[in-house]
């Protein structure tokens, strides 16, 4: 397993692996990318990943705009000149509460806010904040299955649930479902996995892992073109397990420190001189023919 920095990832471009663009924001809000029509004609598409929105969080020293960040993100996505084919939310839609009724209220409010997205195809997945205390019951009532798959323009997307079991376990039954689902996919076909927690042991000391994540990765290894997008760690992070690329997304509520960089994991305090620093979403351009994904990290504005 190798930690990859940006230069390493750029080198992979020549090997038909994953590339990602600079984190400076390749495409400005509202701008279109040259060749959009050509891209569409070639079967390429793009989707947007938003993650860890933690609707319901309240902590002014961490995010004084906790009621506004998600709405700003929705506005930012809506202002993109070309709308994404679909949007994915990779978990922790809402912030933890042990009150079951409040959990449902938050899920409803979240649903209503993201209902304003122009993109009408939205794929949701749960985080532990949404699902670990009730095995995902409330989440399923609002958004459907915890694990599922779908196809889009020859790419097979699989959503893996590693949160509804509070021990952060995917479980034997779901692993069997995954094996069965993958059996329909060509070994060289483009495959994208969407999940909440890291499937590898990113930093288990901070609960940044999946108990049986290695079993999931082993199930994916026979497939040549696999990319994983996930959340949970509230920061951009890129890692390879063999040929499989894992990309963590920023949060839309608060950033977390780099793994092991401080003694305790705790939200990074709000920086008054740089509002919304560390928060953002990403768009992912899929080059289906070459199974490549160009990732652009986007910010949310204070407007």
């Amino acid at each position, binding site marked *: 397993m190798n930690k990859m920095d940006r230069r390493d990832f750029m080198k992979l471009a020549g090997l038909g692996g994953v590339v990602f663009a600079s984190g400076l924001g390749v495409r400005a809000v509202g701008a279109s990318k040259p060749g959009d029509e050509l891209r569409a004609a070639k079967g390429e598409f793009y989707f947007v990943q938003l993650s860890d929105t933690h609707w319901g969080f309240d902590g002014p020293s961490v995010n004084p705009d906790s009621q506004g960040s998600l709405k700003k993100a929705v506005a930012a996505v809506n202002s993109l000149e070309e709308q994404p084919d679909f949007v994915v939310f990779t978990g922790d839609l809402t912030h933890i509460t*042990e009150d079951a009724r409040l959990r449902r209220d938050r899920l409803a409010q979240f649903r209503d806010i993201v209902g304003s997205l122009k993109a009408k195809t939205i794929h949701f997945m749960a985080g532990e904040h949404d699902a*670990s205390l009730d095995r995902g019951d409330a989440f399923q009532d609002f958004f459907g299955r915890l694990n599922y798959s779908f196809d889009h323009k020859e790419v097979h997307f699989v959503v893996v649930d590693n949160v509804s079991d509070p*021990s952060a376990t995917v479980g034997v039954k779901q692993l069997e479902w995954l094996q069965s689902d993958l059996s329909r996919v060509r070994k060289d076909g483009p495959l994208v996995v969407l999940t909440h927690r890291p499937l590898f042991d990113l930093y288990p000391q901070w609960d940044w892992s999946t108990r049986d994540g290695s079993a999931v990765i082993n199930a994916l290894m026979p497939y040549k073109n696999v990319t994983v997008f996930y959340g949970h760690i509230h920061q951009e992070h890129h890692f390879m397990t063999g040929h499989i690329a894992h990309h963590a997304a920023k949060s839309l509520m608060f950033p977390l420190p780099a793994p092991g960089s401080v003694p305790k994991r705790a939200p990074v305090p709000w920086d008054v001189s740089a509002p919304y620093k560390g928060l953002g979403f990403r768009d992912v351009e899929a080059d289906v023919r070459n199974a490549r994904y160009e990732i652009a990290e986007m910010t949310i504005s204070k407007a």
Partner: protein
Amino acid sequence: MRITLRTIVIAYAVIGVAVCTVVVCSASPKEKVVKLAAKKFEFSPAEITVKKGEPVVLEINSEDVKHGFTLPDFGVRTDINPGTVNRVAFTPDKTGRFTFACDVFCGGGHEEMSGTLNVTE
């Protein structure tokens, strides 16, 4: 040499001391047992100090709900079920400060539920 009863007794005593010495020298160090309590959202004690090479047994109980205990740097973990004492045994082979944490999501403060194992020479 005339073997008397006194000689035999002395011989046995010498052999006995030698055997005891060998047994004591090759015996495993006595394990250190530490009792650890888990509850929402803390471990008590929050910091444990042990010595490198000294076998450790943690006896962990939960005072409320199911928790988990993980100490990734030494490859040990256990579920902590209420009403039982859960034991993990290991011998630390390196010095430093290492994080242990709850790895069964237990509620709002779960992410703060951690402690430190301090291993000294």
